[in-house]
């Protein structure tokens, strides 16, 4: 539930570093809390966000959940599969349920995120 190769933030988002790019999604804990995901609002490719800014929204049956950029950057790819199959976020949050890929402004921002152990401690207390 806490893949070692990822970094995490306090909003339950994960980041997988792919050279200068960051692939972003929400964690297993986050999708479990949300329940069935029925709609994902993806950002426009080319749009830019500062770390901490809401860049997407994931909607469950009951609620809307803003997704915050864990790092600053420009959106270069979005997961179009989520349009027809939003439930991918529930089924495979770290794999096929990825949300977007950013070209990072400053990869050192990753150092400010939690590692797997740090995130596990945050979730499990």
């Amino acid at each position, binding site marked *: 539930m806490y893949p070692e190769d990822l970094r995490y933030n306090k909003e339950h988002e994960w980041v997988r570093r792919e050279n200068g790019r960051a692939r972003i999604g929400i964690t297993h804990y986050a999708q479990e809390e949300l329940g069935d995901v*029925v*709609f994902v609002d993806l950002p426009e490719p080319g749009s830019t966000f500062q770390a901490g800014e809401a860049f997407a*929204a994931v*909607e469950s*049956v*009951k*609620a809307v959940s803003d997704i915050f950029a864990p790092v600053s950057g420009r959106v270069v790819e979005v997961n179009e599969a989520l349009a027809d199959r939003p439930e991918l976020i529930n089924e495979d949050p770290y794999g096929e349920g990825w949300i977007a890929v950013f070209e990072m402004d400053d990869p050192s921002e990753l150092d400010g995120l939690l590692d797997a152990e740090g995130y596990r401690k945050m979730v499990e207390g």
Partner: protein
Amino acid sequence: MTDSAAGRTPKRTPLYDEHVAAGARMIEFAGFAMPVEYSGIIAEHKTVRSAAGLFDLSHMGEFSVSGPGAAAFMEWAVTNKVANMKEGQARYAVICKPDGGIVDDVVVYRRADDFLIVANAANIEKDVAWLDYLRRSWPGEGGPPVNPEDVVIRDLSDETALIAIQGPRSEAVLARLTGADLSAVRPFRFVEDRVAGHRALISRTGYTGEDGFELYIAPEAAVPLWRALLEAGGPDGLVPVGLGARDTLRLEMRFPLYGNDIDETTTPLEAGLDFVVKFDKEGFVGKEALERQRDQGVPRRLVGFKLEGRGIPRQGYPLFAGGREVGRVTSGSMSPSLGEPVGMGYVEAACAEPGTLLDMEMRGRRIPARVVEGRFVER
């Protein structure tokens, strides 16, 4: 959707431990710890439509109105006709304020010695206080002249548990646990009999649009009945269902939810509940205000709509027509049965015709929405 009584521990229904043991996700609702889902809202919803689901509704309110003046009092306090109800009948009704605003929507049961009223959990204290105010102030408020001592109002909520079974397999499952002839209990009728050995008021009512029954029982009977029903219904696929699916089920039927679609600022005419407002009654609280509204033209209407773009309607999202804001969304979700987003909301009367194209504003963007007629899902 959460309702927090600051600082107070939420109350528990008699079935709390059953829900926790079943792995339910619990939330606080109307001051109670309630299950929002067990296996998932969509799966539970679909099971109710195809087989049957079991609901713990013990958080809801029940009160009794009795005494020689009860029928005349009730006839005055609600907009529907209830004085002519026969024993064994249930009827949907609305309690209004003098200005026509809705205090609560309730179901009234006519028993031998009283009217049993079932109310929304969040409104129990308000309803009892309002009805008692009417009882005491009544002769001075233009109602029929009845002595306040001839009306007795008792809050039975703490001594009543409520379990509902809803879905096409409901009668088959329940029949295994009762000697009552369920086929003779028509919709909006009830009998009092035993279920799994426990006394129960068995009514053919519900909030899902499916066939089903609501069982009013003593709190001590809740756990044994819940377990007996789950066991009896296992072969039919009966599962426990939480408040999340209860909401999507009623939304598909366009049943209003108090606090979202109706409240003290909305009238039954605006909400499309004209059928429970009986203007040929001699007098009832709110009659004059509702007559005025009817005669002058109801200014806004609660409509159902479907989105024609990607998005999900949520309470509070603005609705536009021709670039002008004409209303707000009051309820919305992705319909599990349709796989499409559906919503309800108030719009100016001129924009309420089925087929009208609106725009719904969601996160700064406008999504087209079409007003539709009738229920979203036909049953």
